[in-house]
């Protein structure tokens, strides 16, 4: 029986806590009597037979959808869309959930005699996936059956011929969607719900639409009013995505399949990363020392390669299929079963140790903008109710924050960092002054469509992602980061956690209360 997450009040007997620091980790002792550490629940037991569970879900859908076989007939146009490489994190060991589900759907389609089947990687404005990434996600069997004939495509949000305008929502939001999806008799969407932000209508209204649609929910206003991104009923981003998704559902029949994973992110060699420090046995301590020593000897590039090669032993904990909203409700309930930790009250300071990977640097570099997005966008938003830190509190991030960018994956990030942030860090000002220029830049558009680059507007979304945290906290300190890079983003660099805590006292007073959110493993704080 896996143990639930819990909050440890730090006292003098508490051993040092492990804090992630990019491609590495540190042991830090937190001030006694005024600090607490939030520990994640242990990984839930996986489904004993995921393939059988998938088939059961397809045959017993939720909501008003009939069983999937009844939606399939010869001569129909079937489109299967699936989440891109940003999920899950770290990438999971084969077989990926998407492979299992797509194979099950294709088995039923083959039984029904459906010939016209197209698979779409729902990239949204993310970079295109490489062949290896596609093979990893959907499996060689599916790839080899569809890719050679051009039936496996990647969504292109800038292809004028490949998009169709379906109309506007009541609030004037454009709904421009992939043409193949609009012209399909059935869209089957295959999702992996790693965090509560994913899934539901957001899958289609982000992954299969154009910049013209995405801009309605990915903007400073929605993100500042999403409290939090992980709590859909209180997220303005999701409200907009839901309106757009509902309009899409009026035109296209959508059969949503969502899966959840347990938070087992590291294999046996790195098991200590999942364990509470006082439970580290001899093997864990030896692994930690060996890993720490070994990583010191490696160059940053080698460290990055090593960490990027880590595959998570995530396993499926639930699968549900049918009507989008009903499915998503069930998915969120299952996700909460794994991730929710109850936390009492806010603190003056919150500490996030940022790992080596986020949704947008799979096989890539965690550049300063992605550090900001991961810390202030994702980790800060991992709450239900209230943020872990009080209004006016201080956020401390731990990450090397190198001034380094992947020139192929993140070309527009470089210009954003050099040009935009040099003039202002105010999200609203940035949006007003620069967004359109980057979003419509022909060179970025070309790179997005033909190379492996994120869309020109993507770095803006990274910045907006942290807009709520920027507004809520009085300052952000980054421990161990590149000083120039940290200052460029308007944050304060600190060489040690002790220094960072002293700097925080300037904002919140002496002896502040501290929360250390020990993530990963993934969790969601329910703050009373």
């Amino acid at each position, binding site marked *: 029986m896996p143990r639930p997450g819990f909050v*440890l*009040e*730090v*006292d*003098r*007997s*508490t*051993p*040092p806590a492990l804090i992630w*620091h990019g491609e*590495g*980790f*540190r*042991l*830090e*002792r*937190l*001030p*006694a*009597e*005024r600090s*607490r550490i939030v520990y994640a629940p242990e990984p839930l037991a996986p489904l004993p037979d995921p393939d059988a569970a998938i088939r059961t879900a397809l045959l017993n859908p939720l909501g008003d959808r009939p069983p999937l076989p009844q939606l399939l007939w010869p001569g129909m146009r079937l489109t299967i869309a699936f989440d891109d490489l940003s999920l899950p994190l770290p990438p999971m060991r084969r077989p990926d959930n998407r492979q299992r589900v797509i194979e099950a759907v294709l088995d039923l389609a083959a039984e029904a005699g459906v010939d016209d089947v197209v698979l779409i990687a729902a990239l949204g404005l993310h970079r295109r996936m490489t062949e290896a990434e596609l093979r990893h996600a959907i499996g060689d069997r599916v790839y080899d059956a569809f890719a050679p004939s051009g039936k496996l495509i990647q969504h292109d949000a800038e292809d004028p011929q490949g998009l169709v305008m379906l109309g506007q929502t009541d609030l004037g939001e454009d709904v421009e969607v992939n043409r193949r999806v609009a012209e399909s008799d059935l869209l089957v969407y295959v999702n992996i719900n790693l965090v509560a932000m994913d899934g539901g209508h957001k899958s289609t209204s982000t992954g299969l639409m154009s910049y013209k649609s995405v801009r309605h929910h990915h903007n400073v206003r929605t993100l500042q009013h999403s409290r939090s991104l992980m709590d859909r009923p209180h997220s303005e981003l999701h409200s907009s995505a839901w309106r757009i998704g509902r309009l899409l559902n009026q035109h296209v029949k959508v059969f949503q399949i969502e899966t959840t994973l347990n938070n087992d992110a590291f294999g046996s060699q790195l098991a200590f990363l999942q364990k509470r*420090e*006082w*439970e*580290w046995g*001899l093997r864990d*301590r030896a692994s*930690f*020392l060996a890993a*720490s*020593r070994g990583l*010191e000897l490696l160059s940053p590039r080698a460290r990055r390669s090593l960490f990027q090669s880590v595959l998570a032993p995530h396993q499926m904990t639930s699968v549900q299929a049918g009507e989008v909203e009903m499915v998503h409700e069930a998915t969120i309930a299952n996700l909460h079963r794994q991730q929710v930790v109850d936390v*009492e*009250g*806010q*603190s*003056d300071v919150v500490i996030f140790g940022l790992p080596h990977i986020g949704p947008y640097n799979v096989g890539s570099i965690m550049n300063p903008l992605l550090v900001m997005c991961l810390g202030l966008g994702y980790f800060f938003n991992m709450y239900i109710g209230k943020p872990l830190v*009080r*209004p*006016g509190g201080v956020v401390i991030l731990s990450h090397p924050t190198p001034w380094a960018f992947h020139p192929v994956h993140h070309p527009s990030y470089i210009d954003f960092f050099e040009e935009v942030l040099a003039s202002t860090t105010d999200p609203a000002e940035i949006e007003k002054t620069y967004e359109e220029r980057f979003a419509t830049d022909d060179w970025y558009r070309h790179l997005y469509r033909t190379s492996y680059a994120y869309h020109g507007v993507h770095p803006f979304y990274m910045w907006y992602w942290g807009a709520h945290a920027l507004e809520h906290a*009085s300052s952000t300190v980054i*421990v*161990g980061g590149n000083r120039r890079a940290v200052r460029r983003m308007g944050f304060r660099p600190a*060489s*040690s*956690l*002790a*220094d960072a*805590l*002293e700097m925080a*006292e300037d*904002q*919140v*007073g*002496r*002896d502040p*209360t501290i*929360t250390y959110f020990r993530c990963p493993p993934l969790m969601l704080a329910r703050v009373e």
Partner: protein
Amino acid sequence: MSSNNTRTANPARSNPARSNPARSNPARSNPARSNPALSNPARPLGAGRGWASALRTVRRLSLGFPLPFPTGAPNWPTSVPRPPKRSALGVDYETAWARRYPVRLARAAYTELVTRPVMAAVAQPSVVGTDRFEAVHGPVIFAANHASHLDAPLVLSVLPDRWRNKTVTLGAADYFFTSHLRALYFSFTTNAVPIERVRVSRRSAQQAASLIDQGWSLLIFPEGGRSPDGWAREHRGGAAWLAARSGRPVIPVYIKGTGRLLPRGSKRLYLGKTTVTFGTPIPPDVPARHLVARIEAAIAALADEASTDWWSARLRAARGETPSLMGPQASEWRRAWALGPSPKDRARRPPGERRWPPRP
């Protein structure tokens, strides 16, 4: 922990403990356990290169007892209750290691080079009836009478090659698995797994059943322990239950003579001759409670056969006159008397005189 959301700067704290300046530097808060790597949180543990790092490690290893975390064991926070310690001995002893291939290989070598020569020298076994289960494929349950610690190694040493290294012995958890060294020895030499004999244990039963499912044969002593007085005891249901559950046959085994070489309570080992007689496989085609009686009767018939001859034993078995393994239902001294001279009195016993079963 909750804080005042409106507080923005340097409030006066009412709790005097919180004003302790030592707390502003976490490393200073506990100098007794100060760790050079932890005192400067900017530097990950073991950071630094070359001599300085090596010296620091040596200093830490030589001076800092108990070793600081993570070199040493971590503290257990006082606010976290410790889980009850699960005993790694007894019925919880994990024996999976003893069934891994390298260990199996080592045990096979040990059996051939040590167990068999020693048993041949000490017990001089005559083996009868291995042809009776030649046709059986897959795992079986060997059910034997039990009078001595020599029984398990003796049976394992005389099993046909096909079974010798693929048989697990079910050993008393409260006897063979009471210390790590003892458990290690018996797990290695006899491939023993612990079984609860003083009470019904679902765990040990399930484990034994799963071993059969994995293709392992079992050597089990249905009496539940060595004979306390030289006579057999009533059989328990374990062997029958396992046979009924797994659908695998039971092969009755009668071991004659080990009780005289190393009886219960004896610290001296005598040399002598033994006989191991294997019976015809008993299929689990009757309910377990009937199977218990059949196994018991089969072993008694083998005992009769070992003491007389096969045909006489068959005739007595057919007439229901097979002598009981449990001896006369009489007072202690008469039961002991019926056994004949003890091993210590062997010099006074005429050569060739049988002790048990009594001649009809």
